[in-house]
């Protein structure tokens, strides 16, 4: 317990502690406003049709906000010193070596994916996917006010990606990953000699496939089949769903690809925890 306290009060971990409190607060704030708007039928902001002068009303708020934030920053800077460890030494690797806190969700993904996916492809897809959001979200409702009912899929997907996959993995990577990037419960001492048996096997092995070529083909079929789920669902529902017709094939493929890619992380996490699965698809060039 003492070591967890030491970890939490480490100067560079203060921002994570701040997020742990700020994010639930702002999530609650937005959801409560969303529920209120949904119940009332018209958003609260619509009732306030009048405009106010920026000077003095907005400028005053900005000024007060800036003073409060600078005050917090000043107190933070006076009470907590920025860390400075020993001079850098390329021959002395600390265990665990961690990236800055805002990249720890990516480092956590390395447990489940090879570096080229976790460190390059997925971060790239996160950026591209975020930029793509306005062009694939054709729902005209919920523009400029909080709501839950009018865009449930968009809100649920974003909250899952941001709160669960990005922030929670960041917190796990900071507080629960110890030497050797092993998982340590909060009350456990970070034992650098902890031995974890490597019993992970590939999915094809689990299915009794021992031949390399068959395993390769099997992996390809599983991964391709997984990503084909999107188009199959489209063909199945296209006729009956007006929404899919309006969305169009191109937008649909982008959405389903990004959505399935995002879901592949929790799927692979569960496969690893429950069945010790390492790779889904092993090929001579790359492993997934």
């Amino acid at each position, binding site marked *: 317990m003492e070591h967890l306290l030491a970890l939490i009060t480490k100067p560079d971990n203060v921002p994570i502690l701040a997020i742990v409190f700020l994010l639930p607060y702002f999530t609650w704030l937005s959801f409560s406003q969303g529920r209120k708007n949904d119940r009332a039928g018209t958003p609260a902001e619509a009732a306030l049709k009048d405009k106010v002068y920026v000077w003095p009303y907005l400028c005053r708020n900005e000024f007060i906000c800036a003073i409060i934030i600078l005050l917090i920053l000043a107190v933070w800077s006076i009470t907590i010193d920025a860390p400075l460890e020993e001079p850098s030494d390329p021959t002395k690797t600390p265990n665990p070596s961690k990236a800055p806190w805002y990249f720890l969700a*990516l480092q956590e993904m390395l447990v489940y994916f090879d570096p080229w996916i976790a460190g390059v492809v997925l971060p790239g897809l996160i950026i591209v996917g975020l930029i793509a959001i306005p062009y694939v979200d054709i729902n005209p409702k919920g*523009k400029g006010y909080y709501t839950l009912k009018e865009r449930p899929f968009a809100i649920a997907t974003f909250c899952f990606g941001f709160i669960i996959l990005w922030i929670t993995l960041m917190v796990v990577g900071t507080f629960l990953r110890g030497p050797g990037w092993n998982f340590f419960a909060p009350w456990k001492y970070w034992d650098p000699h902890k031995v974890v048996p490597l019993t992970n096997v590939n999915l094809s092995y689990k299915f009794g496939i021992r031949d390399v070529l068959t395993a390769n083909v099997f992996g390809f079929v599983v991964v391709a089949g997984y990503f084909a789920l999107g188009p199959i669902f489209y063909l199945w529902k296209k006729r009956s769903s007006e929404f899919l017709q309006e969305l169009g094939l191109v937008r649909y493929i982008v959405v389903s690809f990004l959505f399935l890619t995002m879901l592949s992380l929790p799927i692979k996490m569960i496969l690893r925890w429950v069945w010790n699965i390492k790779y889904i698809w092993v090929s001579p060039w*790359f492993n997934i």
Partner: protein
Amino acid sequence: MNEKRNGLKEKIVNSQIWRSMFRHGYENTGRRYTLQILQNVWLHLHPPRVPRHGINFRFTWCMGGITFLMFLVTAVTGVLLMFYYRPTAEYAFRDVQYLEFDIPFGMLLRNMHRWAAHGMVIAVMLHMFRVFLTGSYKKPREFNWGVGVILLVVTLFLSFTGYLLPWDQLAFWAVTVGTNMARATPVLGHEGPFHPQDITQENDVRFALLGGTIVGPSTLLRFYILHCVAVPLLASVLMALHFWRVRKDGGISGPL
């Protein structure tokens, strides 16, 4: 006495010098409130009037403004820090120690820079969260959302390049771990899938970033220049674009 003071005030306020600096008066009229915004170079970023919910903390969370404020704080403290810091392997760590122990308020200066940078990362994430939850990226604001995503990445990169500069164990290994990913870049990294035979650890994308095969003196110089010159310039240009588009896309989003 009072009359005399008022007379003096009138004289000053109506003088040529005063009127050349402050072109509007101080009467409580809508016209003056408008001029206050339009005729001020710093405030003209704002429209003269905004919808009432635009000044409501519960709606905006102030997070965009806080991000910008944190950027300004890091810019000011960063320039001051540059007076005491040399980006070479011999001096970098010593200079930070010297700053902490011998420069008046040096420790405070460094703390403010570091915590403001962390604060900026938090604020920019929450800003994106708010903009998403209010659906503010929807037409006609699609492009500005994209600019915002790039600004988020630029913010993380600014913070990451700054992380190396103290040149201590924390900095060195955090950046080593962070940049190790570049080895595995498909095609362009020497350990990535589909890389051609010619791509080795001495000419891949990680080498370009580090200026070497491991984090070393040339990495320090590269990150210093990226952190102090290149990325802040890029961020400033993108911020100008971002703020301008907020205005041109119809100001703060609302239900109408």
